[in-house]
């Protein structure tokens, strides 16, 4: 056992107390530390020892954190912590973490019973979206034509290029907003809640997290497949999940009438 001054307790998330861990489950750290449960009443924190003198955050650490939580969320409700939650020792896990927040954690776990998060990401196919924008936007098309013919006059050309790029950037933003709405409408019947994530790339078409009941997951996939067919050649769609409900913890409790399972 290491001494207490060097070791902290890394917290992955909170689960119902009636779960069991496989013995070989490991988490963050090098080598990956064994994961265990610290229970308080009927909830538990998923934790492992961590050497606080060593920086965390290698790709392995990040993947370990999310893999553990996502795999758990496929089985039981999980409140995922943001990466990097460490408390001083095991007493702090219960005394400073589980006990003072017990009511909130308990209620949030109930809300997540039977639901999981799915993230839908879409990336515009560059040539397709540019052609679409030029076709819809005569000013941009004119600039594009001028920019190539004005090749001799470099300064004028550069200014036109920037102007053209700005128009296109704004058009992509408008399309992103529009297509995010289309996505939301297409999946509205299958999801309990949604959070629009900021784009992570300039050609992002959609990036939205959805809270989905387990029995609606298949219909979600079907609805998304249909949308992918509509957008074929224009947007490349990706469905990620089921995930722990990262985007839905800490938000105000959803309308009880919408809450799954009762």
């Amino acid at each position, binding site marked *: 056992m290491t001494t207490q001054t060097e070791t*902290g307790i890394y917290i992955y998330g*909170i689960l*119902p107390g009636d*779960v*069991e861990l*496989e013995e070989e489950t490991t988490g963050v750290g090098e080598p990956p530390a064994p994961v265990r449960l610290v229970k308080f009443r009927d909830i538990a924190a998923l934790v492992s020892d961590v050497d*606080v003198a060593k920086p*965390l*955050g*290698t*790709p*392995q*650490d*990040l*993947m370990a*954190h*999310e*893999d*553990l939580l*996502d*795999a758990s969320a*496929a*089985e*039981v409700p999980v*409140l*995922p*912590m943001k990466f*990097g*939650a460490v*408390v001083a020792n095991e007493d702090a896990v219960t005394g400073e*973490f589980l006990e003072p*927040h017990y009511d909130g954690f308990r209620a949030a776990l109930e809300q997540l019973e039977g639901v999981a998060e799915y*993230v839908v990401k879409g990336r515009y196919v*560059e*040539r*397709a979206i*540019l*052609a679409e924008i030029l*076709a819809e936007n005569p000013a941009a*098309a004119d600039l594009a*034509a001028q*920019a*190539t013919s004005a090749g001799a006059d470099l300064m004028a050309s550069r200014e036109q*290029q*920037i102007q*053209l*790029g700005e128009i*296109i*950037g704004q058009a992509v933003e408008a399309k992103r907003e529009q297509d995010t709405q289309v996505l939301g409408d297409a999946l509205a019947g299958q999801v309990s809640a949604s959070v629009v994530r900021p784009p*992570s*790339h*300039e050609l992002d078409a959609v990036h939205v997290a959805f809270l989905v009941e387990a029995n609606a997951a298949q219909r979600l*996939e079907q609805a998304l497949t249909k949308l992918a067919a509509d957008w074929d*050649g224009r947007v490349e769609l*990706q*469905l*990620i999940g*089921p995930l722990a409900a*990262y*985007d839905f913890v800490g938000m105000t409790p959803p309308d009880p009438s919408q809450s799954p399972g009762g």
Partner: protein
Amino acid sequence: MTTGIQQGGGGVAARPNSSGLADVIDTILDKGLVIDAYVRVSLVGIELVTIDARVVVASVDTYLRFAEAVNRLDISQEKEGLPGLVGDMTEGGAKHKTKGVLDAAGDKLRDLASDSREEERAPRRGR
């Protein structure tokens, strides 16, 4: 990665798509529960990577990149020919470039993975 959680004989749910590293960064560094009882630990160069993965602020660079991409379209065709380009995606060099940022972030992380072992990076502030 196998897990470990079992509850009263529940079945294992299928995972159609697991996350890539870039998605993981978007998710667990940005989202999730935060409380105030933390001990501070250093995080390895994460902020750097996060910033690199997030270049969506419009800038002259972005505009020039868009304009270049337009130039790579064959606009010598008549205007009404432009929508035809939609179906013409196997040709031309534009395709290679479309990935860019996320891949770059992935590379960066891979680099970090090998770097951080050897040379101790300056610890960054974390929660």
